[in-house]
């Protein structure tokens, strides 16, 4: 699924990486715990990271894993430092008013499966 389609599906707002909206997302992983993300997304650079963590460690974690599509859920307004770091790392940062469960449910219904280290989890 392309980033542009995700924006439409989740009624999301894009804050960074506008030039990457045609990028294809191959899978997803959702967590507020960054060590779980680090443990599970080693081979998932084309997956989307779904999280409710609104601080720069969300982007740092994505940076370490070469992820370039991040979705912040539950209607949180991203902190300016988070947006700046996402821009610096050339990442798509999107926000949606939906909660994590519904965001993931909608993504799953459109064929975006949960990934873990390169495999469908």
């Amino acid at each position, binding site marked *: 699924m392309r980033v542009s389609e995700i924006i439409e599906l989740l009624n999301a707002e894009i804050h960074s990486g506008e030039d990457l909206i045609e990028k294809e997302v191959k899978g997803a992983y959702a967590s*507020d*715990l*960054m*060590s*779980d993300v*680090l*443990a599970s997304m*080693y*081979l998932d650079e084309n997956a989307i990271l779904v*999280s409710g*963590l609104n*601080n*720069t*460690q*969300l982007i*740092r*974690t994505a*940076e*370490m*894993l*070469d992820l370039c599509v991040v979705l912040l859920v539950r209607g949180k307004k991203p902190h300016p430092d988070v947006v700046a770091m996402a821009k610096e790392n050339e990442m798509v940062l999107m926000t949606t008013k939906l909660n994590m469960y519904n965001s993931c449910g909608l993504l799953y219904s459109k064929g975006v499966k949960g990934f873990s280290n390169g495999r469908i989890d």
Partner: protein
Amino acid sequence: MAELIKIFEYEVIGNDFNMAGTASSAIKRNLKSLGIEPTLIRKVAIVSYEAEINMIIHSRGGNMYLEIYTDKMTIRAYDHGPGIKDVDLAMSEGYSTASTAARELGFGAGMGLPNMKKYSDKFEISSCEAGTKIEIDILME
């Protein structure tokens, strides 16, 4: 015989949550500029980031060293204490003594040390009140 190509040193300040990840970000950039393979860089980035976060959350600060050899990369994380009371317990997945401030950062899942071990080819840890020493090798493959 393995030959040392380069050493990088980074200072980590204890409790400085705002700077968390800057050393690992620099490590990643340096490895990229040396033309190291991306999935290997990612392994180093994961272990160095976990080590850096641990140092900020749990220690009085310390230093991280990245040594690049022809056949491997070594990451050393040496902090100034107060040390880990029970290393075996700290190594078990899900065990955490992280503060509320650390949890607000998205850490404290109790996966830091297990993650470091998971992505390393050799993992050594020793700890006393004077400090914790972690030494990790990642082979060039």
